[in-house]
């Protein structure tokens, strides 16, 4: 479904990402793991055409992402707070995102009802603007909005950070359930979260892919050993 070819990203003379060849098949759940500055967010930003690759190209369904806008119809993502509209209430925000996919009010209500537990009665129906929500609740709004429109490709950057332990467990359940028919890309510092939800794990270090493993118990040991320095 997705193919990185000779991708590199340089800022000035420093190269922050270099992926010569990477293919992701439809339906795979990919976990991207790495320390700070390993290039995880850069990798996602390139895939979502938010930044320009220095060399190479990324194709999604055979189309180069920087040349067409077609991928936007089936891709959704949540990278950071620049995906949130601060002056809207969460309900207005969901209505806005939903209506981009032609959903009506009933569709949106039905969709949100599935996540009542995740929101823990702190988000829906509250007369509060998103800018006044806690960091954790903002994150929840962003992630659930990314599930709207039934995307075939879902990209989440550090979805587990800023969430409390219960919400982290619930989020894993959500990703597993709604990810069944999707290709999912998740990045995290935390190997344990990724191991729980992904079937293929990529390790980035200083912009280079150093490991590409199927999620097996042996692989998990290999990963732990890799980071234990």
């Amino acid at each position, binding site marked *: 479904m997705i193919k990185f070819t000779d991708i590199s990203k340089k800022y000035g003379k420093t190269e922050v990402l270099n992926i010569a060849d990477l293919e992701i098949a439809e339906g795979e759940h990919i976990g991207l793991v790495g320390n700070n500055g390993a290039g995880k967010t850069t990798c996602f930003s390139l895939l979502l055409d938010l930044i320009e690759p220095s060399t190479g190209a990324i194709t999604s369904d055979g189309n180069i992402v920087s040349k067409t806008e077609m991928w936007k119809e089936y891709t959704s993502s949540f990278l950071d707070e620049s995906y*949130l509209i601060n002056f809207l209430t969460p309900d207005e925000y969901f209505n806005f995102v939903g209506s981009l996919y032609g959903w009506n009010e009933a569709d949106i209500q039905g969709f949100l009802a599935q996540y009542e537990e995740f929101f823990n009665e702190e988000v829906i129906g509250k007369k509060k*603007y998103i800018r*006044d929500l806690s960091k954790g609740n903002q994150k929840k709004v962003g992630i659930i909005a990314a599930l709207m429109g039934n995307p075939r490709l879902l990209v989440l950057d550090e979805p587990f950070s800023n969430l409390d332990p219960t919400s982290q467990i619930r989020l894993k359940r959500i990703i597993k359930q709604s990810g069944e028919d999707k290709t999912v890309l998740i990045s995290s510092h935390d190997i344990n979260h990724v191991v729980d939800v992904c079937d293929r794990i990529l390790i980035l270090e200083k912009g280079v892919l150093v490991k590409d493993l199927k999620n097996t118990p042996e692989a998990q040991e290999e990963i732990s050993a890799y980071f234990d320095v």
Partner: protein
Amino acid sequence: MVSTLIRHKWKAFWRSPALTQQLATTLLMGFFFLYFAAIMIGAGAGAKFIIEKALPGTDVISLVGGLTLYALVFMLLMRIVLQKFPVSEIKQYQSHNIRKGNIVRFINMSSLMSSWNLMLGFMIIPFLIVNHTELMERGILFNFFIVFIGWTLFNNYLAFILDRYFKKDNLIPYIIMGCLVILLFLDFNGYIALIPVFQSIFAWLTQNIVYALIPLVAGIGALFFNTQALKQNFYLEDLITDAGTDIVGNLNLPFLEKFGKAGTLMNLELKLIWRNKRSRMGAIMSVLMLAYPLIFMGSPSLENSGFKLFLGLFITGFFALNYGQLMLSWNSEHFDLLATRNVKIKDIFLAKYYIMLFSCIILYLFSLVYYFLDPDFVRINTVMFLFNIGVSIFLYMLLAAFNSKRIDLSKGAMMNYEGIGLAHFLIIIPLIALPILIRLPFALSGHPVMGEWMIGLIGLIGAVFHTPIINYCTELFQKRRYKILAAFRKKT
């Protein structure tokens, strides 16, 4: 301790990216500041001559005194709606070892450092200087000064207190403002007589120093009350906006959905415009600007048709100018969402286009009222309306493809030039020069009216071809999108 906090604020101002990053922006800000300061000084110093010329035989000082009450109530409402009070600055100091009282004192002091108060000073001091002999003859120079200081103080803190209750999305201040304008109109035309009442109140206040201190005492009272209120509501949760009371902001216009995704985006834009101080100020100003030509009624400058064209351009296109210049920057805080979800960049441009188009139509319809004052204005406003929807709007859209500055929507409206660059300033030149140049050959050959219709015709042609023009702007944006996106993400 308070002085340390004040020093922080001073540093924050001088180190703000708008002042340090770009020379052009800094110069521009300086220019705007001087320009407004000059207007205020001019108004203060010139008040005497303007009134004496317009209403010969009036007692200038007494009339100014009578008008100040109107001005102060209006100013109070404007402050509630537009001034940004520094409560959020509590946050950065809350968790440190600083006493509550010091933080509150700092907030109270820094609210005085607002450009509203500065501008008021620019107006009052020249007035006092120009009129000092008369004021001295009556022995009220010092009292006059004290009354103004007191009123400014009272106004500042009362607005600070009321700001909490009116929660910015309340319609009441606008309704009162509207009523004030009507009252002032009735007053000036002799239907009611409030000004004489105010004049005698003002005369009473200034007659001796004890009475003159009343506004100052009221100001100190408001300061004291505000201190108490701030101490009690010290925790920021208490200051969070309740989104439920926003009547206009909660408006959703279902008929806009007929425009498809552009319609969805238009509903978002309307919320953006209404819920953020700076964009809302643009909307309010564009309504107030409708009255702009009234200032020149009966003055010889209106015999100059070029000047009339300029007025027509401004009153029908002021909203589009204000909103269009920052076009995509308004959305800079959430642009990554728009860039990656199921929206085409063209839909975003289309939504902006329709918003500007509708604003011009609405302002144009209002501007037709000038028929009763001068029938010429119907023709002028019509051609300039066409020019706005067929030329000006597209100039702003072209500019948007090159403008790449983030703006922080949570900031106040006064003296806020974030996102404004030299290009925004230069674009005014073709806006004003083009109509005059189009009309020139016709005017020289003795057919100025035909020249004016020519301006309208060119506008109409632009409006008819809006689809290819918007497509072109979209492509231009697409070519430069990485630069713009990167700049939008860069926090200041």
